[in-house]
């Protein structure tokens, strides 16, 4: 599940294997309906007809692509392969979507306020986290990303903030701007803490809490927006029974630094993925956290 709250294409955080951005669901109303809306028979039939039509279209275009396969130059072959792969992946998604259509949706008594999509960032963020909690609790998804970038209307409705997030991040060391920036970042961290608390208070059938069965990570793509620095990124990790309660510092030694990807390796391993590598990793942090 890919979510965004005031997110924009330059800040999307989910990518496919072939390095294409995945646009997030950014409207709470859409998210709520995806999770809980029950379709009636007519809607289900309309969906089914759409799936059938799409399947027949994909069958045809795959054949058409095959017939030109022989004619194309070597360099074009790769592009055509990408097309095939996309057709196949779309077919798989249609299968998944039809299973989802037929599977019973979870019940919820979660109340949503009127005008869900017209709220400020400060009002919407907790609802995003609540719906994420429900999605995990009802096992509607196993992986969620949520991205933020700007504050939207009324500077997010965060008390005391009078400028945009981006503008404030170029604070030029002006005290007032740094103070406002701190308000925004405290807001993000408070909301994350509230989310962790919610996960902690939910018992799972296996007796553990939802937090014990989840890894939650909060981070930022920059440590200092004023200098556009992406060194020493601040990261908070919670859940999954890892060793917590400590602030780890990874000091740079000359040109050597600990890649953040090492943390991702540990997270993947904790998920049970058999891998010892992710992107630029050169090890893992299992000893520190495991």
């Amino acid at each position: 599940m890919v979510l965004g709250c005031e997110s924009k294409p330059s800040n999307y955080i989910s990518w496919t294997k072939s390095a294409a951005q995945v646009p997030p669901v950014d409207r709470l109303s859409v998210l709520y309906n995806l999770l809980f809306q029950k379709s009636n028979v007519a809607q289900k039939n309309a969906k089914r007809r759409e799936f059938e039509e799409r399947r027949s279209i994909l069958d045809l275009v795959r054949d058409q692509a095959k017939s030109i396969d022989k004619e194309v130059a070597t360099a074009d072959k790769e592009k055509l392969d990408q097309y095939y792969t996309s057709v196949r992946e779309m077919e798989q998604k249609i299968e998944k979507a039809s299973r989802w259509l037929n599977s019973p949706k979870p019940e919820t008594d979660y109340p949503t306020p009127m005008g869900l999509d017209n709220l400020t960032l400060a009002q919407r963020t907790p609802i995003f986290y609540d719906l994420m909690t429900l999605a995990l609790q009802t096992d509607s998804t196993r992986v969620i990303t949520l991205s933020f970038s700007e504050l939207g209307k009324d500077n997010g409705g965060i008390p005391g903030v009078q400028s945009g997030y981006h503008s404030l991040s170029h604070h030029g060391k002006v005290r007032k701007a740094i103070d406002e920036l701190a308000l925004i970042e405290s807001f993000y961290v408070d909301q994350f803490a509230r989310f962790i608390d919610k996960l902690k208070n939910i018992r799972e059938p296996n007796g553990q809490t939802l937090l014990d069965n989840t890894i939650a990570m909060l981070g930022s793509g920059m440590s200092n927006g004023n200098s556009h620095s992406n060194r020493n990124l601040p990261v908070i990790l919670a859940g999954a029974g890892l060793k917590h309660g400590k602030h780890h510092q990874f000091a740079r030694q000359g040109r050597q630094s600990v890649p953040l990807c090492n943390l991702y390796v540990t997270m993947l391993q904790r998920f049970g993925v058999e891998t010892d590598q992710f992107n630029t990793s050169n090890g893992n942090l299992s000893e520190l956290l495991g």
Partner: protein
Amino acid sequence: MSRSTIIFILFWTCTCQVISGREMHLLDENVYSFLQNYCISCHGADEEKGDRVFHQFAVERDGKRVFDSTNRENLYLLEDILDQLNLGEMPPNKDDVAQPSNTETARVVQWITNTLTQLEADSSPQQRVMRRLNRREYRNTMRDLLGLGELAEDPTRDFPEDEVEEGFRNLGEYQNLTDAHLDAYLTAASEYLKIAFPEFPKEESSKRTFLYSDWGIPDEEATTPFMYRVYNRKHNSVDIGAGYKDLTAFSYLATFPRSLLGRNAISQGGYYRISFKAEAIGRLTHPYDATMIPADLTAPLQIGLYIAFNREGIGSGGSNQRRRIALWDLKDIQSEDYSKVVWLNPGAIPFLNWDNGPGSSNNWMRDICEKYHTDIEFTGGLGSNAWHVIGKDAIPGRKVSDVWQGPMLRVRDFAIEGPLAEQTHLPEARKLFDRPNHRQALRSFMSAAFRRPVTQDEIEGYFQMMTNAREELGMTDRQALLSTFKAVLVSPDFLYLRESREKVTSVQLASRISYFLWSSMPDEELRDIAATGELFLPSVRQEQAARMLRDEKALQFAEAFAESWLRLDKLGSMPPDSSKFWEYYALELGESMRGETHQFLARMIRENRPVSEFLTADWTYLNQGLAKHYEVDDVIGSSLQFTKLPADSPRRGLLGHGSILTLTANGVDTSPVNRGVWVLENLLGKPPSPPPPDVESLDTDTRGARTIREQLAKHRSHAACADCHEKIDPYGFPLEYYNAIGGYRETYFRGRWWNRQTSELTEISGASIDGNGQLHSGQSFSNPRDLSQYLLTEQSLFLFALTRKLATYALARKLNYRDEPEIKRIVGKISGNPESGFRDLIIEVASSKLMTTR
């Protein structure tokens, strides 16, 4: 001439020696010693300047120096060396760096040129990779293929972002296609086909004229916010007294007839004509102190016509759910007719806004009433801000609306007519369904969509699908045909521009040209000529290119090329700080700036202006807001108009455009580094090396103690930084005279001081701007005008840079070595004729050999 021929022979013979066993290529001894003598001390084992090292490039084999020519890195390195030598950038012109003689350099240049040409020729031809239509091209192609009018809502809105490589969005090699694309294409195709082949209207076309009762607004008001909108009985009009320049700040409901939400709702998709009469009231005749009214009344009052796609679009948070489709300057006290035809989806809600209005705060209205209208009792505000004022001469029953004389928009006879029959039944569309033979319908649709003749086999494939859709999925004839069309529109033949393996055919050449000049498919004339094969004649391509550039569709080229070359796509990606640069929003500068640059390019093409005017033009396109921003007088109205810049204006050419100056800043501060890099990359074609990985960017300090020049001083004192930054920063310093949104300044901004007593806002200045930039050659310039003059002396570099960008855009691939002779020829031809202009250059590229080679 004769000498270079001799050198050619001398070294050419050497390069052909390939040592057996591995693909090792002999490195000429002169080149080897050149590298040893002039390069390796900075680009070798001891130092790795610019991330380039040459000491591991060659190895010794049997007493000879050789290099691995199958290693792409080695070839890139050679290309890089060649570029640096050709541009005269290396070795750096410094006292302590040994300088080669011209002959030595010429020899090395010649050898590398020949070697690379030889190696390129040996390797498999580097072709353009089959490429996908980008979003702009897709949208234009659909418009032309289906003959569409204006659509309120963009069916491509959910397309994944196009990949951008060095500004270009059409390079096949860098493009991706995923299931998310296919999903978006299928959804968009359904939407487009619904518009192009609408079902017979369920309802008769009707004209709804909205009456007072439809608007759901009061016709008398005792509270100040009445001027938001009120029904005026005397004039039988809707008077609008509040509105926003920037609708993202919009915090009250839109002005539209409420019955559009109920009994008058748009229930069927179709083309509709929205019309009304409107005039400006009280702009010049209001009796009040003009400084009390928070709107610029020197400009004509503007009315914006918007379409909200659904109810969300009429509320404050719905900026993605609405679009302005027209903006008009209203005449004062003279009612005119305004209308627009546009496709509306069911549920769309057209609404009006006073686009340069005073916002929605009503404090100013209260102040005016208190001062000028003591004969009324009135209330206003909400909650804890509510007020109730009883004027000292209050006459019971007299209301604000009885006495108010402030500026307003007066609208009458607002009407929506549609769905319009003549627009919903396009002749083309009807023809396709009337064909008794569905195979014929498919042939005509497929060959148009695939931009080439189609074979019987191909038609059979689609026909089969149509039959299955009818028989197995139970579709009607019509549904089955539309479903097959949908398949056509997601097939690789439509989505990709594909070329034959060995050479470009005449039909494919037509697509190359039309996607170059129109960002869309070829029209009938171009297709007919392509069918004759005459398009291979340069003279025919010249004629066609000239014709196509005269067409309105060429504006698409101006826009797309401005995106690629000047990086106009970056404008708006870092929105200016709204508290520091409120005027950017209040004057709607972003959109005007973009338009200015587009109009500038369009005129350069239309009037075939000399390319040097990109650097020095004393003309541009401004509207009133932008003119105010540029401190230029006498430009009235919201539309961009041709404007001669005053003799004392600092602005000349592209470097005076607000768009360029804004996109090279970060929305808050300016950076001479960013602007310098922009000049080098886009105007001089000399992109600097990326910063070394272990260097942190500047931690900017705007508190005022140190200027940006002082903060950048370490670039000059640190040798590691100086090498690059002494080439970059000098171009950026003169542009420091412009702030982060391109406004002229002579001092840095330190802050604002608000005087509560007088309500005055005073800006506190920081240090004076020092625009002095000095190149290593000793050349210096201290302000933007000087910089333009200097760049003019580098015109030949500029022409090369522009030509390469044009050719890259036209070919939809990166240029390589073998393209250079043709680039040189084009540049030679243009610079050899003082009469030539930008249009000639484009036509020269379109008719060049580059276009016909695979």
